[in-house]
């Protein structure tokens, strides 16, 4: 498939994760950090409640990209977490093509809450 700069690869809303999903994700990634599951620990760390895992946003980015372009085409994904995500917060996740050079397509990805707060930014590359 031919890609062009400005192409929207996907524009999806991922429903907020409840605490059971956060616990599943921690189990699935063997993450022992109680900040994702223990309310008292999260508050002691200065947050109002437990935090959604940053790698869950990375996983959303990678999964949606793989669904769109094919997992075997993924080359790299570089994610910066910019704001915490709390339980039940929906995320709007977008990916837009920023460059097509040779056989490599580069895109910019963002995850944002419904109030517009950007929680993660990323750049990814995949084989055209």
């Amino acid at each position, binding site marked *: 498939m031919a890609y062009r700069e400005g192409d929207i690869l996907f524009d999806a809303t991922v429903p907020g994760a409840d605490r059971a999903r956060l616990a599943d994700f921690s189990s699935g990634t063997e993450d022992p950090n109680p900040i994702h599951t223990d309310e008292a620990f999260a508050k002691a760390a200065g947050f109002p409640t437990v935090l959604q895992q940053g790698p869950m946003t990375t996983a959303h980015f990678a999964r949606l990209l793989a669904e769109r372009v094919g997992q075997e085409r993924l080359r*790299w994904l570089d994610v910066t977490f910019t704001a915490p995500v709390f339980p039940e917060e929906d995320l709007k996740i977008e990916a837009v093509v920023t460059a097509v050079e040779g056989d490599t397509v580069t895109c910019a990805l963002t995850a944002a809450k419904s109030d517009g707060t950007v929680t993660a930014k990323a750049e990814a590359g995949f084989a055209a």
Partner: protein
Amino acid sequence: MNPDRQGHVFPPFTVRPEKALAEKLLRGQGAAVDLETVPPTYMIFLRGETRGANLFGELGIDRKRALHGGQRYEWYGPVAWDEELTVTATVEKITEKQGRSGKIWFADVALDYARADGTRVLREITRLIERE
């Protein structure tokens, strides 16, 4: 954070993708449980914690003051369910900055995943932050 751990290379450990863990990872995302392929971010530094590469412990990071700054994945080849990979984790860089309410440390740790024949299939970089 212990800045003197920059350059530290952890003893290699092995990891083999497990469908039961992948199912939880996908359920956690709220995604369909499709186990045809190993999910692209199945491999993650956290799996080293019980396999001899405890980043938080080695770097002296207090989880209550820790933040996850970001991640990078570089995919070089497919990973199969029955494939055991050898993982080498290296503390590539530790930097210190002065924030508004104290010092902040940043650590970049790279994990290289290789097949038995030495072929690298994945590189993961995780960026850990600790507030003073």
